[in-house]
């Protein structure tokens, strides 16, 4: 469980996040939704400590991340898997080396053990016999899947995904979403997913938080979201005319 309490963040005096409090539950895919520029990425980066925050507390299963020293933060970071918007695979390493990298860096496993684990993770995301290809030789969806394999290589307790299906066709996007959701339930991880894709919300949103202009406006599950009364949220969900008409006839 990750608890965020009264988090505020600004850049050079421009406030980006204001007093955000939210709880992300274990074994669930927790979605953070909101339009482009609403502060999703900044929230995610603040939670994992890539941004310094001005105010607020972040607790990883009761451990207060913000108060920890460099060493202890690093221990928590080893429990975090992170999936980036553009995959962020290392260009100069092969698929296999990418997945083995966290193990190279943080474990004393032998090469055979690392390879076995890497192959296990790659199989889990359905990447088979691609070990020696480079990221530039993979399609967007395959890159995402390799990135997921790398993110779960060290058996993380927490998984953060920033717009995991951006730039993918709708079918592949759903596959990636489903994969993230399955893995979360399978390994009982606390997963946080940033997205502005309503398909993802309906498919995998165990718990959804809506952020608007740096503030939390709504929180609930994908079952309640269509009946929410928040105007901002409704404007976001029913952005297109088609969706608006459907809503009116609901």
């Amino acid at each position: 469980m990750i608890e965020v309490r009264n988090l505020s963040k600004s850049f050079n005096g421009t406030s980006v996040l204001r007093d955000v409090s939210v709880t992300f539950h274990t074994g669930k895919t927790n979605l953070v939704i909101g339009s482009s520029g609403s502060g999703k990425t900044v929230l995610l980066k603040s939670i994992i400590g890539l941004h310094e925050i001005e105010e607020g507390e972040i607790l990883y299963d009761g451990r207060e991340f913000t108060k920890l020293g460099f060493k202890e933060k690093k221990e928590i970071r080893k429990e975090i898997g992170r999936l980036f918007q553009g995959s962020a695979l290392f260009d100069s390493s092969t698929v296999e080396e990418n997945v083995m990298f966290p193990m190279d860096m943080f474990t004393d496993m032998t090469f055979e053990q690392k390879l076995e684990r890497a192959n296990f993770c790659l199989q889990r995301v359905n990447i088979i016999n691609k070990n020696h290809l480079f990221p530039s030789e993979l399609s967007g969806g395959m890159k995402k899947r390799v990135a997921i394999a790398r993110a779960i290589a060290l058996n993380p307790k927490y998984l953060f995904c920033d717009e995991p299906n951006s730039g993918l066709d709708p079918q592949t996007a759903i596959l990636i979403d489903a994969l993230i959701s399955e893995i979360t339930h399978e390994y009982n991880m606390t997963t946080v997913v940033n997205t502005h894709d309503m398909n993802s919300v309906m498919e995998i949103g165990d718990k959804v938080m809506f952020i608007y202009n740096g503030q939390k406006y709504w929180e609930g599950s994908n079952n309640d979201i269509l009946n929410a009364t928040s105007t901002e949220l409704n404007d976001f969900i029913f952005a297109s005319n088609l969706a608006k008409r459907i809503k009116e006839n609901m």
Partner: protein
Amino acid sequence: MRFLHDFGHYCLFISQVFTKPEKTRLYYKQTVKEIEKLVIDSVGIVIVISIFMGAVITLQTRYNLENPLIPLYLIGLTARDTMLLEFSSTMVGLILAGKVGSSIGSEIGTMRVTEQIDALEIMGVNSASFLILPKITAAVFFNPFLTMLSMFVGIFGGYLACVFTGALPPVDYVYGIQYWFIPFYISYALVKTVVFAFIITTVPAYYGYYVSGGALEVGKASTRGVVFSSILILLANLILTELILAK
């Protein structure tokens, strides 16, 4: 003021780079890769350029010393000393600043804008040290070999010029390159090479590391890295020459 700010920022960056690698084995592995990318892959261009420059320096000196009173072997001596003192360290340094500097700048810059550096950081890796220390090690310890290679090949280029153009008898050239040889010139060139290697790797890396935006910004940062490292090489050359050679 802007310059002071950048310089301070650069120094902080360097102090971040010079921290103990977390995994020594991984560090050695990276260093070997970098030796291949930065040093071995530059052997070709160093040979080609040095051979031609050695030849041209010899021919130029020959045409400028069209005086029967000057012994011909002095041409060999001049060509040799030009190679040892300036060309093999400074010119090769500038060429490598272009070749190696732009590749480092765009490599690190691309890693920044595609979030590869963030990926390292979030894993708890000191990305500056992990990515850049192996490059510095490779260049600082192995560029001196490129410089020595350039010296040999350049002097040989001068010899070829003598053989093929008949500008002066090869015997005189060979006598000249052996005449009054000062070994200290080589140490001087190697000291310069080490300083230049440090500049060539760290300055473009610095510009790449702090880039933000997209491909366009990466290109600009990598160009800026090359321009700045070239300027710094020329400055350092002036200062080192004054410090080491001035009597």
